[in-house]
């Protein structure tokens, strides 16, 4: 197997890995603040993709332009979901709260999946723009424009998120809530509002990943579970609550999967899942996490 095939595979892996990272960052944020794993995250990603698709089909808006509006719509939906479904759980005992949020997320994923089938049918859809096929070549390797843009976008968004979390008061409030919610409350931080906005943010981030998927790949109602699993794998790899690490872990996962396609073909998904189980079992704080987290 020559170097070019390897390299090309790696490139594609990094591109999709950036998306994995973006998808995971939202999940990680929500987990940090609310200490719950939203298993409907993939469905929120899917809805973001469909929002972009709708903007494109009905209004002919370029997907990169409708990225923010789609994300905003999902931001609102996310906040609404939090207010209606998860905030009643806030008063409960920790263990019950986590279990019930898992269950509610699960219920949501089924509902959204079904809703999507009803509205858009079960077929695959994709946003085809003029420049869908464009790309450039470097050292004999192909860089499809859209996928490359997707990676750039993911990096920009995550950088913006980082700035938000470190430089703004509300961002710091989110981090404080993640570290010690009681103390955060004692600072005058409205935990309820913070959780609601965080959940909305998580949904918005998922939606942005979904937008890129709709242009660069394809969307269909059943895609939610697959993406939720990918995000879960990355989040576990990076260490729960580790937002910066999520991007790196995502790219890593994408690269590993892509390259392993060369060896095990369609079983590359299994590779990711096996790594996931190993990390869960042996190093639950993740590759980048600290012991005792």
């Amino acid at each position, binding site marked *: 197997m020559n170097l070019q095939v390897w390299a090309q595979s790696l490139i594609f892996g990094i591109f999709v890995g950036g998306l994995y990272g973006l998808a995971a960052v939202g999940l990680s944020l929500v987990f940090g603040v609310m200490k719950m794993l939203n298993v409907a995250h993939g469905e929120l990603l899917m809805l973001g993709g469909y929002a972009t698709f709708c903007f494109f089909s009905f209004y002919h808006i370029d997907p990169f332009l409708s990225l923010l509006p789609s994300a905003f719509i999902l931001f609102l939906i996310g906040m609404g979901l939090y207010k209606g479904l998860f905030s009643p759980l806030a008063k409960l005992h920790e263990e019950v709260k986590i279990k019930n949020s*898992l*269950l509610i997320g699960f*219920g*949501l994923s089924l*509902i959204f999946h079904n809703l999507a089938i009803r509205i858009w049918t079960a077929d695959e859809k994709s946003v085809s723009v003029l420049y869908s096929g464009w790309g450039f070549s470097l050292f004999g390797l192909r860089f499809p424009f859209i996928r490359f843009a997707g990676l750039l976008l993911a990096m920009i968004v995550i950088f913006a998120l980082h700035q938000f979390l470190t430089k703004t008061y509300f961002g710091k409030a989110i981090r404080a809530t993640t570290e010690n919610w009681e103390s955060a409350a004692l600072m005058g931080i409205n935990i309820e509002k913070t959780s609601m906005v965080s959940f909305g943010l998580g949904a918005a981030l998922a939606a942005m990943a979904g937008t890129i998927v709709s242009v660069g790949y394809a969307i269909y109602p059943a895609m939610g579970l697959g993406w939720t*699993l990918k995000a*879960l794998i990355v989040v576990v790899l990076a260490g729960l609550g580790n937002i910066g690490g999520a991007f790196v872990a995502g790219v890593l996962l994408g690269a590993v999967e892509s390259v392993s396609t060369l060896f095990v073909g*369609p079983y590359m998904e299994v590779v990711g899942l096996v790594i996931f*189980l190993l990390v*869960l079992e042996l190093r639950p704080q993740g590759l980048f996490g600290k012991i005792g987290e």
Partner: protein
Amino acid sequence: MNKEYKLSSHRRNFFLGLGTAIILIFALVPLLTKRNDFINIMILIFLYVCLAQSWNILAGYAGQVSLGHAAFFGLGAIATRFLWAWGYPFFLAFPAGGVVAVVFALIVGHPALRLKGIYFAIGTLGLAEILRITIENTLPTVASLPEDYIATYNLIPRYYLFLILAIIVVAMVFWVSRSKLGLGMVAVREDEEAAKASGVSTFRQKMVAFAISSFFAGLAGGAFAFYQVSYYYELPFSPTWTFDALLITFVGGVGTVVGPIVGAFFYVIFKELFARTFPELHVFVFGILFILVVLLLPGGLVEMVSRIRRLVTARKTETGFC
């Protein structure tokens, strides 16, 4: 959260009598009707009862929510299908399905059950997906019965197989729920730390629940392989089966004996009602009911019924006391 009601002996006899009557009626169904669609619906109900009850033992009683139930259903199906296709008599191939599932559970149980709560859930999901993807790629074809066999395919024995299996699974859950084993499981569910402190071997309880759960899921899979004429080999590994079990159990009443039965019944009814007009609507409806149950009525339909009953008896004593 879940109460097993201590029944007075009057009540108990009533339910036993009722249960026996229902079973008798079910047993007579194939003799009373020739309508295959009706029989198929009953079979589906029994199948879901098995699937849900086996999941219920692990999640409702031992408190471990597994999202990988389909793995065992699939393993049972594949084991039974292959053994049967290779010429082994069905009465051997069928239990073998359960055995394969249990062996797998015993192996993965050790690492898996070390994971707590949500990690166990996503871990089992990951595991089931690994199996599914593997089968999807190693056996991408359809498992179909040979033509000459299809000609002699008889629905009736399959009906009784599912009926008997459902009865056994329900009886098992009933028996476990009232046994010392069941008490141990519930202790783990309610407060694992406290259980450990009072000397309960929490790992053993979880493992036993896991084994029982997977065994019956495997049997259900084996029955499925016997029943379904042709299907993609990866179908029984699809997470949809797990999700169905969750929906059914929770809406019916998790941690109760009757809950999954009631849930399965309504699930299939809804499915049939909407099959022509809105296929898959039953999943949507149950999804919403599921969320409502989690938020408002943790005991599911069973709890709702008992609440109504209490309201009614309260009214009665208020108004009509002599």
